[in-house]
């Protein structure tokens, strides 16, 4: 069975902290994605990766960076967390960029 896991379901961090969100998929997918989900705004793409060490900016990359050192793992980094980054973060993977995406359970991040 297809599986995408995320390192935490809930996370509380202080303003200015460096935050790491990790995502692991076991489907050997080339493409991985990070979204944030806010009420009324749907899913907004932060970054995606189409191969190891390759990344592309999505719609809202400001304040975020990513790392993909291994095919199965895609990390989202908040260099200096701010309160406006409080949100639900969803990771997804897919065989192709426009193919069916498999989502992880999400991480609800609160920055105080």
């Amino acid at each position: 069975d297809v599986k995408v896991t995320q390192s935490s379901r809930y996370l509380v961090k202080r303003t200015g902290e460096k935050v790491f969100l990790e995502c692991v998929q076991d489907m050997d997918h080339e493409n991985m994605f990070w979204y944030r989900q806010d009420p009324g705004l749907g899913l907004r793409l932060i970054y995606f990766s189409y191969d190891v060490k390759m990344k592309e900016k999505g719609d809202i990359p400001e304040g975020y960076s990513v790392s993909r050192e291994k095919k199965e793992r895609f990390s989202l980094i908040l260099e200096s967390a701010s309160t406006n980054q409080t949100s639900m973060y969803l990771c997804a993977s897919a065989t192709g960029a426009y193919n069916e995406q498999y989502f992880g359970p999400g991480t609800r991040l609160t920055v105080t």
Partner: protein
Amino acid sequence: GQQVMQIPQYQHVQEGEDFTTYCNSSTTLSNIQWYKQRPGGHPVFLIQLVKSGEVKKQKRLTFQFGEAKKNSSLHITATQTTDVGTYFCAGPGVAGNMLTFGGGTRLMVKP
């Protein structure tokens, strides 16, 4: 850039009533996908439509792709409480290899 708009944003229905959500794109789409997110859950893929005018059914759910491939709809017949959730459409973005998601329609069903 490309926009994918969904209406309505919210819909309350009585159990047994029908429900429809509409998805409109500012550009022609090569395909469109639909996802369902249960409360507290994550989006789960439902279906992909590729052909102009395509209609696909999954039990009580009917998905349509417009002739011009710029709009799509999801219709649920005789809603049940298990249909509760947010339904998203998504289409390929104009630039880069990514999907653009609509804002979603949150369906609430009163028993």
